[in-house]
């Protein structure tokens, strides 16, 4: 769902906290450079994933499936760090549903366990199973899905019937096709799809292995082309970069809006605290692969590196330059120190979740009712994120900003409520 985004705009005149110090244009240029590098890294790692998928489909084996999973996990590292660009940059927010929509009713795509249930009040297509059905009805329309193509996924299946849980494309659709459902409940362990789901002979399991392979191929192809598009938007001459640089005040606001909205409503709220309060192992952001601890960690890292103006690329090179931190420090050193301290506190808390998960305490287990150690770990991250949002608000206030942007009614037809 798209949302705005409480937003702010700056007063350029008057005694701003930014009167002296780093140039706003430099800060925004560095921000755009970092965005470009993060999306370029996402694209490069997605291409590696695509090569692994091609290898799996051509000659399926347990090793090839494992290699594809490994490539998917690696591809998430740079991508999650881009989420901080979503809120605040309309061009990113309008696009990102194609690649990272979640949660999804995976029964739309492929077979699911009987415990998954059937069609729901919210989604009549929850168990459509496109892979098993070359032709089906969607609403009142008969769909020819004999050939599974990027076009079918993108134009017909994605958000089919106007339901957002019908996620047909992007990282999480691919994740489901590689891992399958996680049926371990609150126990450790990810989805366990057998590699024979891709076997193109009589050893095929789960039926329709050819169509499953076609789906995975098409979804990966789309991911690559979608990432190519967004990377170009942040390059020299690209629209996203131009938008950010068009108006310095609005550009700085976009940076802060992205940091605050991701920290608070999205990550602390919907992705972390809600899952804990529902005690539901399916409320994990990367639920099929059990990679949620990394998803949270790299989201947080993205917020931090936008503030500090420094990003370490997947090849180890560093993109660094004028930062929001410089800008804040020029007007108010204490506030800058407060922001930096809170960002590192959050990263420490998210790091604790990550290390515990990597040592065997799965994120699913942390969410279980009455699991106090798990609750303390997750709430550590939530509290850090909530607390850092307060300081982001202080920065907005210190910028001598004034609320001026109003959420248009078009954004209301896709209502968003993280939690009530």
């Amino acid at each position: 769902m798209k949302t705005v985004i409480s937003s702010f705009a700056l007063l350029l005149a008057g005694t701003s906290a930014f009167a002296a110090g780093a140039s706003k244009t430099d800060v925004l240029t560095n921000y755009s450079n970092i965005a470009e590098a993060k999306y370029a890294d996402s694209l490069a790692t997605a291409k590696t994933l695509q090569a692994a998928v091609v290898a799996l489909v051509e000659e399926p084996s347990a090793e090839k499936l494992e290699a594809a999973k490994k490539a998917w996990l690696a591809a998430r590292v740079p991508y999650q760090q881009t989420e901080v660009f979503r809120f605040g940059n309309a061009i990113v927010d309008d696009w990102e549903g194609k690649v990272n929509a979640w949660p999804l009713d995976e029964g739309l795509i492929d077979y699911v366990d009987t415990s998954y249930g059937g069609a729901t009040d919210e989604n009549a297509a929850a168990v459509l199973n496109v892979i098993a059905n070359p032709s089906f009805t969607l609403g009142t329309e008969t769909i020819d899905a004999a050939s599974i193509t990027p076009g079918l996924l993108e134009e017909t299946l994605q958000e089919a019937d106007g339901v957002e849980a019908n996620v047909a494309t992007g990282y999480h659709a691919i994740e489901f096709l590689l891992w399958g459902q996680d049926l371990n409940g609150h126990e450790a362990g990810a989805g366990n799809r057998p590699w024979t789901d891709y076997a193109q002979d009589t050893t095929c399991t789960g039926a329709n292995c050819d169509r499953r392979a076609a789906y995975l191929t098409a979804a990966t192809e789309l991911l690559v082309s979608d990432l190519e598009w967004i990377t170009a938007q942040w390059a020299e001459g690209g629209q996203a970069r131009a938008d950010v640089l068009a108006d310095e005040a609005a550009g700085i606001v976009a940076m802060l809006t992205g940091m605050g909205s991701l920290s608070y409503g999205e990550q602390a709220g919907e992705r972390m605290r809600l899952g804990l309060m529902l005690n539901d192992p399916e409320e994990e952001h990367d639920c099929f692969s059990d990679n949620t601890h990394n998803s949270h960690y790299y989201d947080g890292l993205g917020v931090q590196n936008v503030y500090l103006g420094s990003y370490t690329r997947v090849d180890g090179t560093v993109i660094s330059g004028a930062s929001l931190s410089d800008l804040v420090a020029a007007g108010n050193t204490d506030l800058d120190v407060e922001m930096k301290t809170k960002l590192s506190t959050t990263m420490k808390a998210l790091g604790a979740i990550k290390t515990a998960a990597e040592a065997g305490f799965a994120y699913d287990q942390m969410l279980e009712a009455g699991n106090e150690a798990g609750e303390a770990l997750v709430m550590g991250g939530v509290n850090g994120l909530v607390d850092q949002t307060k300081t982001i608000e202080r920065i907005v206030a210190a910028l001598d900003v004034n609320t001026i942007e109003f959420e248009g009614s078009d954004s209301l037809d896709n209502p968003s409520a993280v939690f009530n």
Partner: protein
Amino acid sequence: MLKRLSCLLAFVAQGAFADQTLVDEAIETHILPSFALLNEQTAVLEEVARVHCTATAPELRSAFHKAFDSWVRASHLRLGPSEENERAFALAFWPDTKGFTPRSLNDLITNQDPAIYEPATFAELSIAARGFYALEFLLYDTTFLPSEEAGYHCDLVRAITHEIHRNSAGIYLGWQGFQETLRNPSLEGTFKDETETLREVFKVLIAGLQFTSDARLGRPLGTFDHPRPARAEARRSERSRQHVELSLRATYDLAVLLSQNEPLIQKRLIDAYDRAIELAQEMDDPTFANVADPSGRFRVEVLQQAVDRIREIITLELAPALGVTEGFNALDGD
């Protein structure tokens, strides 16, 4: 679609500064009375359920409606004690986009889970099974109406009403201490100055209106091609329209209070509220079931626009006049 309206750069008068007396008054005349009422009504609900636990008992249903009304009147006040210990989340888990509430109730009933007999254990269960929306399912959803009178269903009603009162009382008691924090900003405290305390109160006003527009009205509206009447809030007990009206009346009180030093803005706010409340009152569609036909849909859209007009005045006029920025709320994000 994310649509950006024109970016209007407004110059705040240099003299605009936050006024702590507005916050103090909001605490005294709006926040504390709202939670006192919630505390009382949920105590009554718990008592009534001890005697009448049958889903169709008029005494129980009447107490349910009164207590739920008192929650909706306070539902925008999401700050401080309501955000601690999952209290407000457990009282009101909605929207429930993945059907957690019916599923968790079903699990309890199917397994005859003994957790409901131990309040401390019940309080650890999913928020989806512990609040007003879960109770509504038990009292009004035909799939949950029990075949016999007593038994597990009855005990579950009692467990939920006890839990509802426990959380409501927790919020009310929590405010006895939290009001001091909010009344006395200090450099070392949670709130550093009057701007921050006022922003905290201002934020719940704007977030409450956003919730009414986006969720209470926006969810059943869906899109023109896909209206979603089944997504209306509390439609099973036919409270959807009423929630909009109650919530508008509650935020009206807060808006009038916060705009008292700005007579012109206050006048425009009152006019905008009068129009929205009138539209909500006139609507002869308790569950927004008519969003599926064009004329019924139109009326809900007009109401939503009227609510958005209030939001516009608050964001564009009242916020600068008060010298506050909007900040972030839980509705940011997807």
